[in-house]
């Protein structure tokens, strides 16, 4: 069985994979958002997602270490390492103390920051394509924009997770910034991307309707995002 999901949040991804196991589906392979599942006994495995230090590569050391602990490396994807262990071997958690959990999330957050910078560069490139008179360029701008908003939101979420862990560790209270971009903004950007991509191939009327809805959503999303950001200060 195949399922398509785009996760930026590794905690929800882990949760989903484990829910699938409960239903008797064990994830076997992953490629660009496509998860391939095999039948398994309900609750047979526990999945965890780790974050490596190199792209598509884990050291022999890591591999042996995990094997020794009864952990199977199911899939490498970018920096992500999807692991599982038979549930019969007991509870399976990768990070069991505050310090190492903070380190883990810090590495992930750093990766997101790198990704955001790269995406902004791509975005500027596409703006240039758009200026040349190619509507596809602006479609890409919206698509990348939606992705940037998603990554920024994830970075904020991880920041809050880290701050909470630090509070537990150091008995100090940090203030958290909640809220990133409203999902309305992301959806609006995606719709606008579709509308722009459709120019020329669909009727002008349909494109106009989609675009109007998209613009309303983007405006509302932006308004909500700004208001919630202000309200926190």
């Amino acid at each position: 069985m195949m399922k398509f999901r785009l996760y930026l949040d590794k905690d929800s991804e882990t949760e989903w994979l484990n829910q699938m196991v409960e239903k008797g589906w064990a994830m076997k392979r992953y490629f660009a958002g496509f998860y391939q599942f095999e039948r398994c006994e309900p609750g047979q495995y526990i999945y965890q997602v780790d974050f490596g230090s190199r792209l598509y590569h884990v050291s022999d050391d890591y591999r042996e270490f995990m094997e020794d602990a009864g952990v199977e490396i199911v899939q490498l994807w970018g920096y992500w390492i999807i692991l599982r262990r038979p549930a019969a071997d007991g509870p399976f958690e990768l990070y069991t103390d505050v310090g190492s959990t903070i380190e883990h999330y810090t590495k992930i957050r750093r990766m997101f920051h790198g990704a955001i910078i790269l995406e902004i560069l791509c975005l500027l490139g596409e703006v240039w394509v758009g200026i040349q008179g190619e509507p596809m360029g602006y479609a890409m701008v919206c698509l990348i924009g939606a992705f940037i908003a998603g990554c920024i939101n994830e970075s904020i979420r991880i920041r809050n997770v880290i701050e909470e862990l630090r509070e537990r560790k150091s008995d100090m209270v940090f203030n958290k910034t909640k809220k990133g971009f409203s999902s309305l903004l992301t959806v609006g950007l995606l719709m606008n991307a579709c509308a722009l991509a459709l120019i020329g191939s669909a009727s002008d009327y349909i494109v106009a309707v989609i675009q109007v809805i998209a613009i309303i959503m983007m405006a509302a999303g932006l308004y909500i995002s700004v208001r919630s950001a202000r309200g926190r200060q």
Partner: protein
Amino acid sequence: MQTSQYDRKGSCDVMTDRDSPLTEAFFYILLALRRPNHGYGIIQEVEQLTDGRVALGPGTLYGALQTLQKRGWIQIYSVDTESRKKKEYVITQAGREVFAAEMARLRELLENGRLMEGSGDDEVSIVSGQRQ
């Protein structure tokens, strides 16, 4: 008199626990490596020692072993070439010193903690900590 051999290095770095006090994980890993042991062996021994209270996750242990090696507190003992490779680690002299320093710190805590036993409830007002 136990003066602490450890000084506070650098500024208070919350991300990586610098030397002192040792985290529980580091403490127990060093203890488990007083004789050569491999990854999974460490997990099992620590679990036994603490009656299952401290269960080291593989991610935590893997990271800790890397860090401890970098600091020179543990070293690779042997790589069993026949059968299956199983990397064993063992504590170094530097590791033993760090462990002894931590023991001294804990002893001080414990001894000072005894002051509490002799004190009456009415004299002491307790400011409650905020750890759950």
